[in-house]
C-alpha cells in the first residue's frame, strides 16, 4: 500500500529538512577551518590554508594528538581481548549469571559518562594513589577500555551467532587443539568483525571527553585540548582546523567498518546500534 502522493511529498520534505539539520553544522564548522581571520563571524569573508600550517607546527596539538592515538591503540587492544573473550563465553555457553555479564558489559555506556568518570577518578585517587599510581596514559586507557569493550563484544557476538558452533567441534574431531581451532577455523570467520569492532572502538576512544577529563590528570588528549582551547578566542582558528581533522579521522574508520560489517543496510544499522548502545559518551 503506497502512501498517497501528498504524504510522500511531505515525508520527503521532512526527511530533507532533518538531514539538512544534521549536516549543515558540520559543513559550517568544516568551512571555518579555511577562515583567514581570527574572528568567527559568519559569513566567512576570506579563505586561506594558513591555519593548517599553524596547527601542524603547534607543539601542544601534536602532543595531544599523539596521546590520543596511544590511548586509542591501548584501549582498542584491551577491548579486543576482553570483548572477544566475553562474546565467546556468551555465544557458546549457557551458564548461571550470563544475563548479569551481558548487563555488566553494557552498563559503562548506559550510565551517564560523568558517573563512570567520577567513579574511576575516586577509585584511582583513593586506592591506587597511595600505592604510587598516578593519572596519565595508563588511567586514560583503563577508562576507555571499559566502555570500548561493548563495541567489540557486540560486533563479535553478532558474527558468532551467524556461525555454527559445530564447525569448532568438527575442527576438534579432525584433531586440532583449541589454539589451532581458534587460529584456523574461528579467527578467519571473525576477522572482519574484529576489524570492524576495533575501528569502532578506536573511533569511540579517540572522541571521548566526558570520562577522559576525570582520568587524564594533567595530560591532554585531543578532545581535552580542544575543550581547553576553545575558550581562548585567539586560538580558535587552530581549533577549527583540528575540528575538521577530527571529523575526518573519526568518520573514515566508521565508513570502513560499516563496509567491513557487510555492506547491507541492516548490518550497518547493527553497527550503528553498537554506538547507540555505546551511548557515547559516552559520549560519547
Amino acid at each position, binding site marked *: 500500500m503506497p502512501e498517497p502522493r501528498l504524504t510522500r511529498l511531505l515525508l520527503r520534505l521532512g526527511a530533507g529538512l532533518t538531514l539538512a539539520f*544534521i549536516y549543515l553544522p558540520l559543513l559550517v564548522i568544516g568551512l571555518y577551518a579555511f577562515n583567514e581571520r581570527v574572528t568567527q563571524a559568519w559569513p566567512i569573508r576570506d579563505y586561506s590554508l594558513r591555519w593548517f600550517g599553524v596547527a601542524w607546527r603547534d607543539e601542544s596539538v601534536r602532543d595531544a594528538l599523539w596521546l590520543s592515538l596511544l590511548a586509542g591503540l591501548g584501549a582498542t587492544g584491551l577491548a579486543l581481548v576482553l570483548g572477544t573473550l566475553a562474546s565467546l563465553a556468551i555465544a557458546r555457553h549457557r551458564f548461571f549469571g550470563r544475563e548479569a555479564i551481558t548487563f555488566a558489559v553494557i552498563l559503562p555506556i548506559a550510565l551517564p559518562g560523568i558517573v563512570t568518570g567520577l567513579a574511576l577518578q575516586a577509585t584511582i585517587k583513593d586506592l591506587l594513589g597511595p600505592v604510587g599510581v598516578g593519572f596519565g596514559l595508563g588511567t586514560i586507557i*583503563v577508562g576507555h577500555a571499559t566502555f570500548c*569493550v561493548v563495541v567489540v563484544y557486540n560486533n563479535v557476538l553478532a558474527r558468532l551467532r551467524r556461525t555454527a558452533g559445530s564447525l569448532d567441534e568438527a575442527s576438534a574431531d579432525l584433531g586440532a587443539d583449541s589454539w589451532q581451532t581458534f587460529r584456523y577455523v574461528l579467527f578467519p570467520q571473525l576477522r572482519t568483525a574484529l576489524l570492524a569492532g576495533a575501528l569502532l572502538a578506536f573511533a569511540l576512544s579517540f572522541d571521548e571527553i566526558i570520562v577522559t577529563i576525570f582520568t587524564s590528570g594533567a595530560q591532554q588528549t585531543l578532545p581535552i585540548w580542544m575543550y581547553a582551547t576553545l575558550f581562548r578566542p585567539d586560538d580558535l582558528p587552530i581549533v577549527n582546523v583540528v575540528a575538521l581533522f577530527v571529523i575526518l579521522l573519526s568518520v573514515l574508520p566508521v565508513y570502513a567498518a560499516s563496509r567491513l560489517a557487510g555492506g547491507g543496510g541492516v548490518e550497518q544499522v547493527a553497527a550503528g546500534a553498537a554506538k547507540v548502545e555505546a551511548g557515547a559518551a559516552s559520549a560519547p
Partner: protein
Amino acid sequence: MTSVAVVEPPPRRGAGRRLSSFLYRHPRLRLGALLALPVGWLGIVYLGSLAVLLLSAFWKTDPFTSQVVRELTLDNFREIAERPVYREVAWRTVRMAFLVTVACALLAFPLAYYMARVASPRTRNLLVVAVLMPLWASYLVKAYAWRTLLSEEGAINWALDPLGLHFNGYSTTGLWLVFTYLWLPYMVLPVYAGLERIPQSLLEASADLGGRSLTTFARVTLPLVFPAVVAGSIFTFSLTLGDYIAPSLVTSDQFVGTVIYRIYGTALPTAAAYALVPIAVIVGYLLVARRLRAFESL
C-alpha cells in the same frame, strides 16, 4: 607414500594438546578461562569503582580543608534534599531531557518513516549511512560547531537578520537545540529499525478492512513503532541527564552534570551523592521502558 599417510598426519602430542583435550572434557573450566579476564575487568575495575563512588557518598567533607573524612554520615543526602538549588537543578535537567526527547522523536519520525517506507532500497542504504556518519563525528566538535553557530555573529543570527529576528543562542533554548542535534541519530536508528520490522501485510490488512492511510497510521503503525521510540528515548534521555560539556559551551545555566563537575574537586561526597540522582532517574526510566517492551526494539 600412500595417500592415507597424507590425509592422516600424526596428531600433535604436547602440552598444548593435553591442555586442549582437558579443557574440552571440562567445559566449566573452559568457560572460566574465557570469562576470567572480562569479568575480572568489569567486576573489579568498573563495578568496584562504582562501589567506591557509592561509598564516598556517605563520607564527610572537612569544611576547612575540603579533604574527605572517612566517617559514615547521611549529611550529603540531607544537603541535596534540603538545599532548594539542588532540587531546582535536578528538575531543570529532567525537564530538559524530556523536551530534548520530544524534539528528537518529532524530527526523527519523518526521516525514519521516509527511509523505511518510501525510499528505494538504494536510497535507503545511503540514508542509513548518512545518519550513521554524524553519529560518530566527534561529540565535542559537534557541540563546538553549535557554539559557533549560536554566537551573536554566527550563522543562525546571520540567517535570521534579514527577517528582522534575533536569537539569543547562549541560553537554555540554545542548549535544547544543541542536545536535540547531538542525540538525534540515536533516535532515528531505532525508530527506523522499528518501522522496518512492521510487516507490509499488516498495513494491507488495515487498508482491506477499510482503514484510510491516516487511520492505518494512527491505529496500526504508531502503536507498533511506539516501543522503538521509547528505546530511542532511553538514549536521548540518559545522555542529556549526565552531560556537562555541552551546557558549559552554550549557557551559564546549571544542570546536574555541570554541578557535579563543579563541586567534585572540593566536595567529592556531595558530588557522589548528587550523581545518584541521574542514576536513580535512569534506572526508573529503564524499568518503565521495560514495561513498555522497549528493550525488544534495541
